[in-house]
């Protein structure tokens, strides 16, 4: 009786461990900041990007959906430090729409497709006055 019970308990525990480990693996695999993805949705709420870290593959078209839930306009500018610095000191209030430079009007959605040609770590930032300082910054890991 006791041995049988112990076997059952051992089996139940083993199942729990296996299930937990499997679920953890699935969850980690789906984590946007770690595994390169070709379709990503970035939500904007209270002037913050969510997620604030993404991972995308090199050489493959990546579709990024930008959902602005705020009642104010935002930008999504992705690029290296030189690109960000140019926009930081630029004089354009609103940028022409380019795949890597999106203007998302209040309460609207924009979709852009980008093919990244080399590995890098870029940032995506909203350069409207005061927005970067307020925390509208994200990191994009471009990986092979």
């Amino acid at each position, binding site marked *: 009786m006791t041995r049988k019970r112990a076997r059952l*308990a051992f089996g139940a525990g083993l199942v729990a461990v296996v299930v937990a480990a499997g679920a953890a693996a699935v969850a*980690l695999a789906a984590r946007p900041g770690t595994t390169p993805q070709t379709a990503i949705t970035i939500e904007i709420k209270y002037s913050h990007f969510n997620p604030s870290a993404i991972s995308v593959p090199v050489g493959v078209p990546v579709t990024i959906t930008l959902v602005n839930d705020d009642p104010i306009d935002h930008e999504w500018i992705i690029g290296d430090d030189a690109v960000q610095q140019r926009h930081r000191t630029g004089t354009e209030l609103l940028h022409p729409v380019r795949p890597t430079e999106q203007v998302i009007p209040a309460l609207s959605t924009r979709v852009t497709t980008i093919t990244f040609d080399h590995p890098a770590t870029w940032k995506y930032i909203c350069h409207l006055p005061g927005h970067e300082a307020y925390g509208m910054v994200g990191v994009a890991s471009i990986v092979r």
Partner: protein
Amino acid sequence: MRRRLPAALLGAGLALLLVAGPTLACGGLIGPNGAVNLLRTTTLAGYHDGVEHYVTAFQFQGGGGAFGSITPLPGVPSSVEKGGDWTLQRLIRETDPPAPEALLFDRAAASGAEVLMQVRIDALDVTVLKGGAADVGQWASQNGFRLPPDAPEVLDFYAKRSPIFLAAVFDADAAKERGQAIGDGTPVHITIPTPNPWVPIRILGLGKAADARVDADVYLLTDNQPALLPTPTGSNGMTLDNSQQASQSLLNDLRSDRGMGWIPTRGWLTKIAIDASAPQLSYDLAVDASGQGVPSWVQAGLNVPVQVQFVDQTTTIRALLAAILAIGVLILVMQLGRMPGPRAATRA
């Protein structure tokens, strides 16, 4: 307070909010580029017979163009009119004897979703809006203003309690044509029937950097000594500078100003000086002048989520999985502990 007056006089921006009775507060300022320098705000909030009287004036730094102001209100106003000519100055004289001679005020106005009221006061266009953050954002956009990045969260903070906003546009060019000098202001008197007066404080930090200071004076004139929430402690950015029975000379003087006939024959004068960093002002000022001493936590914004933080879902999932894993291991260990040893099994 006294030491702040010279700064106010030397500087450009000054807003005076005089409140008689319960409260009312101040406005968040926005400019075409989302940045407006408001150096100081003064407000009088008065509460008598279930009606809140809010008298305020703004003085902006710099001239030209248009400036906007957004003020959350506790209810739908029954009237918005030009305020008395010297009510605010008289209050300052009462609490700060060396009365300033050059306190100037300005205003700005708004318009938006459901427009409840529109009033033109001198160079100020005032619109009372009913709506949420999206509506106010729409008004700002339509009027050529860019709301600062903290506006969505701040406006939501207010809209959850009261969807009424007073939006004002101050046309500095028009003011100049009227002969108003930069720094001059137009006092506005807002009458709001409401059972729950409160003074918006958090809005004062709108658009300000984390290290920016908010410098404002709020006067309360109530029938009885009010209970306040949060209690001004100094360390929370609010200091109780004055709390005493209002003098008859003050009440008589205020009552003789334009539109101030509502001033009661007796009242309690409270002055709260605000000197805080913008992030420190995460609350409003709830006032209970009924004598019960129970100011509302809701009206103070203390039971409303002040910060909405995005939760990393992967972190949540991993924590959940870790918990499942831990429980599984725990069960396993417990059961193994109950397992009879080989000797016991043999005996059986």
